Structures are given as structure tokens and as C-alpha cells.
């Protein structure tokens, strides 16, 4: 890969990637361990003519980016668990009104104030189910800086393509860690720009009438088309409606536009799967430890494989089932009491093969921790 080499924190990688993707607007509120994102944005955005807002809380931060996005700018906010909790209502508003935006959650230990400076992966289910009501959601993650860059750009691409909020679930370890990243040249990663309506001024524009392919061309708020946006169930003009046909059509559209395209937004890495009798399934910081172990044990001939998930929601069940098909042991490595493992058990045949290797004490699980669990599983004792 051509481009500028940098040695920076994961949080800064996320900033560089967002700007690469065309971000023009950021609003946020300081919270550990995500604050470096806001700090870097405050410096970088005015340099490119973009806008940075430090709001009074996380609620107003997400509201501001939704407003800005509606006017036609790619927009993002960043937070951690407590702030992500505050954002849930407005997240649902973005789902309902189909306004693209990106929300970064640099996870720390929870619940509540929890462990501000220590790692956790306990927000996976919150990302999926945090806002009320049935809805589909997209949540992505990554374990190293180069992938973090690519996946952040992808988050914007998905947000624009499907007119949906996209959540980036990073964590304290990857957010604060420094390692090499190559900033790709312009054009190296393709970008999706907003699909704008071709309906001309003076002609009736239906903001919520999907095209045949399900996509909804937008008209920048403040532009030539005046329309209504509401978090209520609404008709093709965006006007409130409780007509059962309209309600059914809208909820079906909101679910289908994500779930039917799961394949288009599934990102993962697989290593040494072919002959693996034990497959580790992991993501984010935990996947670094899993990969460390897999690479080390492979050298000693142990048949370990790794499936690293980068898309957590919509859960790529098909991929997990295929990759784990021949494994005797499927070990999910994560930093919570077992969130992704539930999805893995639902996805695979013979779920009795699925085990959890976790840490829930604010520390990154180590390769040795995983190895000890594997030894027990394989009947070798510690």
C-alpha cells in the first residue's frame, strides 16, 4: 500500500479515516477513552473547512450530527459506554428518519461509570438493542490500525449507501494503542457519496419513497425541496401516519434494507481455518491476543484457526457457520460475560461445540489466558 506512514493512536486513526471518507462535521462531548477523537477533530476539521462542535452532552452531540447530516454533510460523533447510553434515543431517530451518520463507541469497562481507563467489550448488545423498538443496525469493529482505517471508511460508505446510522465499536486498547498505519492515497479505498435526488426544483419530491433497489435519494435540507422529517411513522412525504399499511411498509423497509444486504456489509478475516480443529472467534482488541496465540501455536503444529469478525451487526451468521463447519471446538474470545457467543451458538450447527474464553476484569485477555482455557477444553489440564 502506498501512502504516508504514521505512528499514532487508534483514536487518531479513526479521525484520519473519517476525514479520508469525506467527514465534514463532528460534534462530541469529552469522555475517556474516546476523547482524543474529539481533540483531533477540533484541530483537523477547521483546516479543511469542516466544523467541530463541543456540545453540552452526548445527547445533543448525536442530535447535532443528525441535523448536520440532513443538510448534506457527512457527520460523526464519538463517545464511550456512558455517552453511548445517552445517545440511544436519538440513534433510533436516525434509524427511523434514515439519516446517515457514524457513531464511534470506544468501549471501556461497564456497566455505569465502570472502568473509565480500562478495556471492555460489553457494548456489543447495546449497539444492537440499545434503542427501543424493532430496528436493524450496523456495527463494525477492528483489531489493528490498518483495519481500523479501512473499516471507518466503510462505516461511512454503508451509512451513505443504506441511509442508516453505523456504529463503530472500538475499545480502550485499540483506541489508545499506537502502532504503524499507512494512510492510503486518495482513491485507494473507494468512497460512497450521498445519493441525491435528481428530481428538479418545482417537481414533487417524495423523500421517503424508496427506489426499486430500496435506496432513497436525498435532498439536502435547506435546498430546493421542502419536506418534513419526523420520528413518527410517516408516509412517502415524511408526514406522520398511523395507517397500518404505511406503518407495516415502513418497519419492513427499515429491517429489510439492512438484513437483506448483510452480505454487502460483512467484513471478517480468517487465518489457518482449513485444517483447524479449534477455531477461535474473536474481534477488536481480544482478536489481537487470539491471533498472537494462533500464530505461535501453529509454529508448533497445533491446528488452531482464527475467525476475526469486523462486522458484528447485522451478525454474519452464514460466514460463522461455514468457517466453523469442521471445527471440534469453537472458542469465542471476548471481553464480556458472553455477548457474541450467543450469536455464534445460534449460527453454527452443533452449538455444543461453542465455548467462551473471556476476561471481565478490565484487562485485555492474554494469549496465555486463552491457552490455559484451551488446555482445559482439550483435556490437558493447566
Amino acid at each position: 500500500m502506498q501512502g504516508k506512514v504514521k505512528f499514532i493512536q487508534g483514536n487518531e486513526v479513526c479521525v484520519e479515516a473519517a476525514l479520508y471518507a469525506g467527514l465534514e462535521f463532528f460534534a462530541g462531548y469529552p469522555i475517556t477513552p474516546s476523547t482524543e477523537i474529539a481533540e483531533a477533530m477540533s484541530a483537523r476539521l477547521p483546516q479543511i473547512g469542516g466544523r467541530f462542535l463541543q456540545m453540552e452532552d452526548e445527547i445533543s452531540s448525536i442530535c447535532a450530527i443528525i441535523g448536520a447530516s440532513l443538510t448534506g454533510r457527512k457527520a460523526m460523533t464519538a463517545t464511550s459506554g456512558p455517552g453511548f447510553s445517552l445517545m440511544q434515543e436519538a440513534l433510533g431517530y436516525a434509524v427511523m428518519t434514515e439519516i446517515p451518520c457514524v457513531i464511534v463507541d470506544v468501549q471501556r469497562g461497564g456497566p455505569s461509570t465502570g472502568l473509565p481507563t480500562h478495556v471492555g467489550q460489553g457494548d456489543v448488545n447495546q449497539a444492537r438493542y440499545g434503542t427501543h423498538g424493532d430496528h436493524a443496525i450496523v456495527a463494525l469493529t477492528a483489531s489493528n490500525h490498518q483495519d481500523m482505517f479501512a473499516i471507518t471508511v466503510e462505516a461511512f460508505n454503508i451509512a451513505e449507501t443504506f441511509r442508516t446510522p453505523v456504529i463503530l465499536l472500538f475499545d480502550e486498547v485499540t483506541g489508545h494503542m499506537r502502532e504503524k498505519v499507512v494512510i492510503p492515497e486518495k482513491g485507494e479505498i473507494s468512497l460512497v457519496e450521498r445519493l441525491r435526488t435528481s428530481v428538479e426544483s418545482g417537481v414533487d419530491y417524495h423523500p421517503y419513497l424508496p427506489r426499486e433497489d430500496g435506496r432513497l435519494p436525498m435532498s439536502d435540507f435547506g435546498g430546493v425541496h421542502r419536506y418534513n422529517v419526523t420520528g413518527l411513522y410517516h408516509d412517502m412525504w415524511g408526514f406522520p401516519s398511523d395507517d397500518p399499511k404505511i406503518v407495516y411498509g415502513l418497519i419492513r423497509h427499515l429491517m429489510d434494507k439492512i438484513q437483506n444486504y448483510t452480505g454487502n456489509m460483512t467484513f471478517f478475516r480468517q487465518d489457518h481455518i482449513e485444517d483447524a480443529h479449534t477455531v477461535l472467534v474473536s474481534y477488536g482488541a481480544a482478536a489481537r491476543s487470539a491471533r498472537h496465540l494462533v500464530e505461535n501455536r501453529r509454529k508448533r503444529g497445533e491446528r488452531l484457526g482464527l475467525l476475526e469478525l469486523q462486522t458484528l451487526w447485522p451478525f454474519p451468521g452464514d460466514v460463522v457457520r461455514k468457517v466453523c463447519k469442521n471445527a471440534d471446538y469453537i472458542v469465542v474470545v471476548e471481553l464480556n460475560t458472553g455477548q457474541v457467543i450467543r450469536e455464534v451458538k445460534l449460527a453454527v450447527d452443533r452449538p455444543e461445540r461453542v465455548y467462551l474464553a473471556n476476561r471481565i476484569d478490565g484487562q485485555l485477555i492474554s494469549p496465555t489466558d486463552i491457552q490455559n482455557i484451551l488446555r482445559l477444553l482439550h483435556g490437558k489440564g493447566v
Partner: protein
Amino acid sequence: MSVKDYIRERFFPHMWCPGCGHGVVLNAMIRAVESLGMSKNEIVMVSGIGCSARISGYVDFHSMHTIHGRALAFATGIKMSRPELNVIVPMGDGDALAIGGNHFLHAARRNIEMTAIVMNNRIYGMTGGQFSPLSGYAAAASTAPYGNIDHGFDIAKLSEAAGATFVARTTTYHVHELSRLIRDAILHEGFSVLEVLTQCPTYFGRYNRAGDAPEMMETYKNRTVAVGSEKKNQDPDLIERGVFVKKELPEYCREYEKVIEKNQQKQT
């Protein structure tokens, strides 16, 4: 253009109760916009949740009906993104000052150019008449069956203290003044707050034996005075109407434009 050109006729009749003051605010707002000769395309109306919030659906502007209390936060994003737009934010008293109180304070503190219209009917109407932070001590409400022990805010004083650079108050009885003040608030280059006392005969009026809509408007006529009036000294319970604050201070979006001008190009 006529008044009808500014409304979305197909969504009428509106959903407000007979006698509700909100329609008067809608009417005065449209007249204010008309008198300014503004294009409908340059106006964005952002509202939250409640009876007042439905006003955004009836006007033929860019309209965004958001979530409870957060209208100013959405509006801040829109205005910062497109400072050339005129942003009007109609809110109810509960919407603006209970759930949205913090956003209200901070929007005022930033002095971001937008027009906040607080339609103060002293009650939560949409949910059926619970007391609001403006109901006031001893008011009756469905959640204050023994009389309210919460004290009310003074919206004008609160706005001034928070940093709003235009603060005014009027009522739905004083329709010409209402229209003129909306106009002045829109023209003001900074965060402007207009409190409009607006009657809710269905809940506040009924619970508090304040009479029907005409009687409540009669009260607005008799119990309010122009700001600075001698009558207020004799009868301190009278409510003042008019402009309380009008000053020029740096406006937020313009300040940010300066930050951009100074730092653009200096790419690292």
C-alpha cells in the same frame, strides 16, 4: 404571497384542540415571515415533541420534527452546517425547559443565531395535563391533584442569564405584537428567545378554573403590561410584555467561520 402559500393545506385541519393558542402563534409566525419577504426555501423549522412541536408539520418550510427536548441540539447541527439558513425552533414550555432545559441554556450561551419560540401554556397538553416547570406554585394539574409545590421558571430572566442576546415576551391575545416580535426575533443576529403565553383551555384552563379560551385570553389582556409600565409598580403580579434584552455579541457561526479562515490550508 398569501398566508395560504406558507402552509401545507393538505395536512389541515390541524390537531390542536378548539380554543388552543398554538394556532394563533402559527398565524402570527406566517405573517412575520411574509412581512420579511423571506423565501420558504431559506427557512428551517425544527421542533421537539408536544402539542407545540406539531407546528412544524403545518408550515411549508424545511421542517424537522425531532425528539422531546432536543430540538435546539438538532437545530444547532443544521445551523452550524448551513449558517445561511434561517432556523426557527418552536417549543413548548416542558419541551424547552424541562427535558430540554440544558440544551436551551447552552444554545443561549453560545449565542448561535436562531429563533427559539417558547409556547408557554404552563402544562403538558399532549400527555393530558401534567404540571410543567412553568405551571407555577399551587397550580392544579393531573400530576398535582393536591396543588403544585414546584416553583416555576421566569423564562425571560433565565434566558438573559444564560446569554441570549434577544429576549422578549408576549401573549396570544396581543397578535400584532406577537407577529412583530417574531419578526424582530428572526432578524436578530444571535440567539433570540420569544416567550408566548398561549392558552390551553382543555387542561390548564379546566384544571385551574381559568375559564374557556376567550376568558384565558381576557386574562392575558388584563394581567399583562408593557415592559417598563408604571402599573407594574402598583401591582407587582402583573406580567411584563415586550423586549427585555437586545444586544450585540459575537455570533457563534460567524466566530467559527473566523476559526476556519485562520486555520484553513494549514494542513498537517
